[in-house]
Structures are given as structure tokens and as C-alpha cells.
């Protein structure tokens, strides 16, 4: 057995890349969970094609998974990767530009057939033509080694091929000193009904490990110690799972049944999938015939006394806007989750973007204001969607919760919240017929009473026509309409009285304030931290509440020479803040279907500082 030295690393970024059929998402997820359990801080970025299984070897068929982990604070999936695992030439071609100079490449040599090279558009074999000189290339015939390991099992070649990703995983486990047990357990559970597949995968995983351990090619091995995270119990979680669980937690704390009316759409479908697992929690999931039925059934459920929720992405939101107006008019609780993706139209279904903010704020006919909240990180989806539900119930209003493909599919370690300490957000259903009026509002919140069918003596009727103040009867009188329009607006504005004031991360005054919302949090934080380390007067302010905005936001903005708003759109929050506060804020805008790199924001701040 060969001599091996071990190096310590503070952080490292690895990218697994292969065909959509190669199981790279699974490999990445396994590596992530194991890494999380080791106590590293981490951030991940899955990146897969819109096609299910694009033909093998093609560039558009490449599926990738990047993980950035370390013993330090990790805020992004990593601007560039240090290690690239490429199962074929296409994977190499597509991902090479994201590899740092001097980075390592582990290639499955067998994948480099002339056919595949051609499909990837390589004139010559990069493994031979020296074009990879500036990198450290490890050539491993993963396919052959996998086949060898499975020789005596006489599995179909299809199945043999399917398990080769575990070989790569095994090697990386060895290389970065991760235990195989978590994955071994997972395989054993997952394939308990398919013993031969289970056996195969286990063998190949170990084979990969042993290969790395025994052969000469890998001389060094890396050690990445646990991160100094706040003490407590952690789990790794994706944004979509956190959203599903946040909704369940809200229903539990509200003592309501959770009803999800939804229609599948990338990248939101996983929330529907996740919630449909929890029937024993009384969760009712309804896969409707379309988005309109999704939201209107949820409105019906809320009318009946459930916590109505609908989940979708941009194109689906477009279809729901009429019904959102209805929810505004009938003033019932409703949570609309928009897991944003690249637009316009069908756009880039599997890519991330933040271009639905203005749609969330203004995309309805008439004056129809609703609260809009956005999550900052995958785990933050839990708290933010919980808060969205709380406001929906307390203020009897539809609430838009914004996430995006990057947050929804990305994951990070999550300090598990103390469920008992979470607030009771249960509504008081109206039951007393004495003086009941469907639109008699709460003095403080302006919320109308929630009187559900089945309650004797509260029979009443609601609808989308303008309502008379107090009685809720149909009414077209000029003064009443203006009053109701203002009451509905005022109700939402009053939410600002109870939400936390905006908090600056860094000095309260200074040269540059970087204001962000949603999934840009991590990249902005890294960029701002680097500047502060460099001694620059740069602060960060990240908004969870986009409507209403925190009361103190204006003063804060005025305390800075420059306000920079990085967004994955053409400048939407920018418009909102400029209109409201008349501050000459400037935007940094990227619309590539990809999250920001910290360096992009860091550079922009430099420009501003240079003036």
C-alpha cells in the first residue's frame, strides 16, 4: 500500500459532472449529507438540464452538482471549483471554465471515446493534446474498474454502468477523509427490495475508496475540520424541503389543517412531493388540473377553515394573478409560494432568477396589495414561509413567499429550531353571532373575522365584487369603494408596525450599503466581508420583508454615500426603493440563470469606492 500524506484545508469546492443519466445529483447529495454530518459548513448548487435524459455524451445533457464546504463560514456554493470530477468529455468541456487554475480534474478515461469527444465538440482528446497542462489531471478508468468490481454478479451492463457514480463517490470520500457509513446506510435502505443492486452499489462505493487508498495516483489526502458553527443540533436541508416543513410547522402552530392546491412545475414540484409524504400530519395535497384550480381550491380550503397554500413558479404565478385578486377581496389567509426560475415565459425552467418581484408586488388588476416576503438561504425558507403563514392568518390576507431555483434545490446545514419555542399563531375563528359582521375589522390589524362554514348563526356570503364596509354586502357606492381600497392598503401597511426593523450588518453609516433580497444573501455577505477585511466602509442590509418595507429603511439608506442593489434581474427592488425613498441607488444586475459569484459583487463595490 502506497505512502499517503494528509494536508489540512480550510475550505474546498468540488464539482461532480456527467451525463444526466450518470446520477451526478445523487452523488453530490450523498457527498453533501456525509459532509454535513462531519460538521462542515457548506453550500451546494445543483445544475441540471431541462431535458430529462438528454442523449448521452451531449453538451446540453451535462448534469452537475457543486459543493463548497469548509471549517470556516461558507456562504456560497463557491465562485470556482478546486476539484472537477468529469465522467465524460462533455462534462469536462462544459465545466472546465469554472475550475481554478491549478485545480484537479478526475476523469473517467473510458468516457473519452472518439464518439463522446466528437459529441462534446473536441477536435482532439484533451487528455492527450496537453490542453490541460495547467491542471492536475487524474485519469481513472472508472467504467472498467466498476465492471471489474461487479464481474461475478452478472448484472446487466445497464445496471453496471448505473453504479459507476458510486466509484467516483468512494474515491472522493477517501480523498477528503469522509466516512462511507452514511452512504452505506442509505444504499442499504434505498435498495432493500433490490438486493443485487444494493450489493453492487456497496461494492462499487468501497472499490472506489480502496482504489484511491491503494493506488499510486493519489498521493495526498485532505483533511477539512468541522466548522465553528453555533452549538446545537444540525441537519442538512434544501430550500424546498425547508419550505414544506415551514408550512407544516405553521399549520401545526396555527392548529389548522394544511391544504396544498398545486400543479407541478420546475423548480417548485419538490414542495408538492415533500408535502404529499406527510398524510399522517393531516396534510392534504391536491394535484390540481392547472395552476388556477391550484390556487382557487386553496382559497376554497381557507374559506372552509384550513391553511390554504399554493406552490408554483413564475409562469404559474401569472395564471394565478386573477385568483390572488379574489383572495385580496375576500380577505382570506393564503400563502402563495413562487420558486422563481429563469424567464420570461417558459424561459429557463431549471435555472435560477429573481425577476418576479415586480410581478409579486404589482401583477394584479386593480389596487390589490399583498405582503411579499423572500427567503435568503435554503434553510431560511423555513422561517420565512412560517412568517408568511403567520401574517396571512393574522391579517387575513394572501401572502407571497418568494424563493428561487438556487435556494429551492441548494442546501446548507441548519440549526434545528426548538419547535416548542416557536410562537402559537392560531387564529380565533369567530363563533359568536352577536354583532357578527363579515367585514367588521379588528381595530389594530384591520383584519376581518374568520367565520367558517359549519358555525351556526354566522351564515354569510363573500365574493369578488366590491364589498360594503362592515356588512360585506355587494356595494358600488363611490365613497365605499375608496374607503375599502384604502382599508385594504392600510391593513397591509400596518404589518410594518410589528415586523422587525431593518438591521445593518456592519456600520450604521458609511460609504457603501449593499441592499439585497432573496438568494443573493450569501454572495453579498462574502463580498461585503472581504471588503470589511480590507478595511473598507461597506455594510450589508438584506430584506426579508419586501412589502411592507421595514419602517426604518429610509433613514438607513440616507446614512450611506452609496447604495448598491445587486439583483438577478434588471433592477426590480431598485425601482421600488428609488420610487419610495428617492435615493440614487444603483444596481448590479445579472440575468444568466446563475447565482452571483462573490467576486462579481466585490468588484462592483470596488468600482463604486473608486468612484
Amino acid at each position, binding site marked *: 500500500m502506497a505512502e499517503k500524506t494528509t494536508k489540512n484545508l480550510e475550505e474546498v469546492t468540488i464539482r461532480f459532472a456527467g451525463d444526466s443519466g450518470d446520477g451526478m445529483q445523487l452523488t453530490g447529495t450523498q457527498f453533501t449529507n456525509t459532509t*454535513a*454530518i462531519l*460538521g462542515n459548513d457548506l453550500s451546494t448548487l445543483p445544475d441540471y438540464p431541462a431535458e430529462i435524459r438528454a442523449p448521452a455524451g451531449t453538451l446540453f445533457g451535462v448534469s452537475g452538482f457543486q459543493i463548497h464546504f469548509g471549517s470556516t463560514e461558507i456562504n456560497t456554493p463557491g465562485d470556482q471549483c478546486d476539484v472537477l470530477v468529469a465522467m465524460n468529455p462533455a462534462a469536462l468541456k462544459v465545466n472546465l471554465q469554472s475550475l481554478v487554475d491549478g485545480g484537479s480534474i478526475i476523469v473517467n478515461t473510458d468516457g473519452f471515446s472518439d464518439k463522446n469527444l466528437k459529441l462534446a465538440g473536441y477536435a482532439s482528446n484533451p487528455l492527450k493534446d496537453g490542453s490541460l497542462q495547467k491542471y492536475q489531471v487524474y485519469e481513472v478508468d472508472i467504467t472498467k474498474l466498476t465492471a471489474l468490481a461487479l464481474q461475478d454478479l452478472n448484472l446487466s451492463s445497464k445496471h453496471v454502468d448505473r453504479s459507476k457514480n458510486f466509484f467516483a463517490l468512494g474515491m472522493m470520500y477517501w480523498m477528503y477523509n469522509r466516512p462511507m457509513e452514511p452512504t452505506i446506510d442509505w444504499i442499504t435502505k434505498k435498495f432493500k427490495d433490490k438486493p443485487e443492486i444494493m450489493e453492487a452499489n456497496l461494492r462499487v462505493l468501497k472499490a472506489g475508496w480502496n482504489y484511491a487508498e491503494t493506488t499510486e495516483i493519489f498521493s495526498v489526502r485532505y483533511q477539512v475540520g468541522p466548522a465553528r458553527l*453555533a*452549538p446545537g*443540533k*444540525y441537519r442538512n436541508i434544501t430550500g424546498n424541503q425547508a419550505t414544506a*416543513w415551514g408550512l*407544516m410547522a405553521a399549520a*401545526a402552530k396555527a*392548529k389548522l*389543517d394544511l*391544504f396544498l*392546491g398545486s400543479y407541478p412545475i420546475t423548480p417548485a414540484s419538490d414542495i408538492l412531493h415533500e408535502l404529499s409524504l*406527510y*398524510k*399522517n*400530519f*393531516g*396534510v*392534504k395535497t*391536491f394535484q*390540481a*388540473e*392547472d395552476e*388556477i*384550480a391550484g390556487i*382557487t*381550491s386553496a*382559497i*376554497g*380550503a381557507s*374559506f*372552509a*377553515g384550513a391553511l*390554504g397554500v399554493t406552490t408554483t413558479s413564475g409562469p404559474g404565478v401569472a395564471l394565478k394573478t*386573477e*385568483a390572488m385578486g*379574489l383572495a385580496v377581496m375576500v380577505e382570506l389567509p393564503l400563502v402563495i409560494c413562487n420558486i422563481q426560475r429563469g424567464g420570461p415565459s417558459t424561459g429557463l425552467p431549471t435555472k435560477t432568477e429573481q425577476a418576479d418581484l415586480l410581478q409579486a408586488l404589482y401583477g394584479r388588476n386593480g389596487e390589490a396589495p399583498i405582503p411579499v416576503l423572500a427567503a435568503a438561504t435554503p434553510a431560511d425558507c423555513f422561517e420565512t414561509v412560517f412568517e408568511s403563514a403567520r401574517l396571512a392568518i393574522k391579517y387575513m390576507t394572501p401572502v407571497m413567499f418568494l424563493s428561487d431555483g438556487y435556494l429551492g434545490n441548494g442546501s446548507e446545514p441548519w440549526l*434545528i*429550531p426548538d*419547535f*416548542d419555542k416557536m410562537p402559537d399563531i392560531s387564529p380565533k*375563528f369567530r*363563533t359568536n353571532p352577536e354583532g357578527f359582521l363579515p367585514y367588521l375589522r379588528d381595530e389594530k390589524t384591520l383584519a376581518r373575522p374568520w367565520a*367558517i*362554514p*359549519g*358555525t*351556526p*348563526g*354566522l*351564515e*354569510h*356570503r*363573500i*365574493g*369578488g365584487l366590491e364589498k360594503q364596509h362592515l356588512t360585506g*354586502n*355587494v356595494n358600488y357606492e363611490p365613497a365605499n369603494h375608496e374607503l375599502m381600497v384604502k382599508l385594504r392598503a392600510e391593513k397591509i401597511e400596518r404589518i410594518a408596525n410589528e415586523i422587525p426593523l431593518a438591521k445593518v450588518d456592519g456600520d450604521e453609516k458609511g460609504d457603501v450599503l449593499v441592499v439585497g433580497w432573496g438568494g443573493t444573501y450569501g454572495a453579498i455577505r462574502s463580498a461585503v466581508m472581504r471588503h470589511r477585511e480590507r478595511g473598507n466602509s461597506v455594510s450589508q442590509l438584506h430584506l426579508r420583508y419586501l412589502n411592507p418595507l421595514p419602517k426604518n429603511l429610509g433613514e438607513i439608506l440616507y446614512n450611506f454615500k452609496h447604495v448598491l442593489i445587486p439583483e438577478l434581474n434588471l433592477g426590480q427592488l431598485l425601482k421600488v426603493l428609488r420610487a419610495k425613498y428617492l435615493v440614487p441607488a444603483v444596481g448590479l444586475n445579472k440575468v444568466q440563470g446563475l447565482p452571483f459569484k462573490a467576486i462579481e459583487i466585490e468588484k462592483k463595490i470596488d468600482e463604486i469606492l473608486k468612484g
Partner: protein
Amino acid sequence: MNTLVQEIIEQTAKAEPQKYSAKDFQSDQDVRWCPGCGDYSILAQTQRVMPDLGIPRHKMVFISGIGCSSRFPYYMNTYGFHGIHGRATAIASGVKMARPDLSVWVVTGDGDGLSIGGNHLIHLLRRNLDVKILLFNNQIYGLTKGQYSPTSEKGKITKSTPYGSLDYPFNPAALALGSSATFVARTMDRDPKHMQTILKRAADHKGTAFVEIYQNCNVFNDGAFFQFTEKDTKDESVVFLEHGKPLVFGKERDKGIRLNGFSPEVVSLKDGRYSVNDLLVHNEQDTTLSFILADMTYKPNLPRPIGIFLATLRPVYEMEMERQIAFAKEKRGEGDMKKLLHSGDTWVVQ
């Protein structure tokens, strides 16, 4: 975990049943339909039937879309939801899934239910939630002042079709049957007794009940159904479907429907060639027959079938949903959020 809703349901379950009269189902809102509108009769029959259902008023929900017909819920002294155009069936589905304990009624029009709302309708029918659908068919868009609708006869001259409409009309009964509905019926605003029996049958049906109601819009489509509703022509133009009975019609009950191969034809019972025994006997439970009868609808020289085309049973959607939940709770135990949060791979940082 007991939800607030369950508490309310349990409390009110104790309240002993009330005796109602039709009046108890009249709301305090003044009815705003045109004088003479067929909607008045449908409202009256519904209010008359409700007391017989033995369901507490507060357990009833009437849900509608947009249209003259869709104003209906405002006039019922029950819970009501005047939704948006075409979506009543979807809203109702949500109400029923959330609250199987409620009696849920949808009121819609030929435009609301068959034009913009067609998709939600056919999906509700195939899912078979226990929801009652009353489709007021006046073969016109009333509220928007008279454009043709999906049930208007071809060639209809309206504001939007001065040269006559080009669309072949839907046959609502056939569409419902094609959507695998379990209960499909047709009745008329001007036959109160018949409407009442049909409404009762619909209420008693376990599953989605689709009731098409011929309704006269005396402002924009006056007399559309007079051939079937008025004394002088009714007997010769309508055949009433009665379970287990042969299809006989005519003023002197001297005509009948016979199957020639599988095509219905009118035969005389007078000229001695055919007797009642040769006639088609109605069977509400036969889906194939229901298609044959529905298909008679626009056929010239065949009387218009009125009554219950089909009444069969299939598992009820929301009940199956409840069953799955009960099953899951039994199998995995009542869900515990705290447990869930701590389940699976976790680790502790000191």
C-alpha cells in the same frame, strides 16, 4: 393533534337538528334578477327542497362563478362564495376536500361552467367529489348583455355574432358522461315539481351530481326552451326518463322510443306495430345506455330527454383522501413536527 376546525365541528355536532321552512333559506339580500327571469323559479325550488334534506343550514355552502346565475348564493341564507368566472367548481373542490362534513353546492351558468370553466368542471366530474352542480343553461351570456354561449344553437344571431354563431353547441349531458360523471340529470325552470325531485336526487347522490337546468333568459334569449316547457308543445317534445320504465311520451302517451339496433327511434303505440314492450326501458345505472340517451339531445325528430340519465356509484374523492390520512396515521402514527425536525441524519455541534 386536534385542529380548531375539528373543535367547531364537534361542538356544533351537539346542537340538535332544526326544522326548516323554505323561508329559512331566504337571505336578507334583495334579489336582483330581471323580472320574469327563470332564475327565480330555480331559487324557489332550491329553497323549497333544502328543508327536506335534514342538513343544518350552517353546514351548507353555495359556491358560484360569475354571471346572472352566479348571483344565486347571495340569495341563499347559507354560507356562500361568489367566486370568479369559471372557477366555482375548483373553489368548491377545495372546500369539500378541506371539509367533507359540509354540503357543497355549485351554481354556474352555461358560460361560467362550460366556456371559461369547462376544464374544472370535467375534472371535478371525473374525480367525483361529493359536490352538487346546478348548471343554469339559458343558452346565452346574460350578465354581459347577450353574447352567444357554448350551448347556443349554431347560427345564433347575437351582439357578438351578427352573422350567426359558427360553433356547434355542447351537449352538456354528453360532455358530463364523457367526463365519467356518476350522476347526470336535466330539468327545467318551468317544471317546479320535476326540478324538486331532481334536486332531491342530486342531494342524495354520493358523489358529484351534475344537473343541467333549462332556464329562460327573458331579456336576451326569451323562449329558448318553450318548446319543451310550454303546455302546448311539451308533451310531444319531451320524453321523461324514469328508472325501470319504458320511454313513453306524447299527449296521449301514444308514442315511445325504441332501439333500432342501437339507435333510438320514435315509434307509434297506436298503429299496432309496436307495443310498450318493444320500447327502450330506462336504467339509471347503465353507463352505455346513458350515452345513447344523452346522444338523443340535438337529434331532430327525437323528443328531448329530461330526467336522470345516469346515477351510479364510484368511490368519493374526499372520502378516499380521508381514508389515506387515517391509514397513514395508523401506519406511522399521528404526525409529530418535533420528531420530524430531528429525524434522519443530524449532528451536534458543541
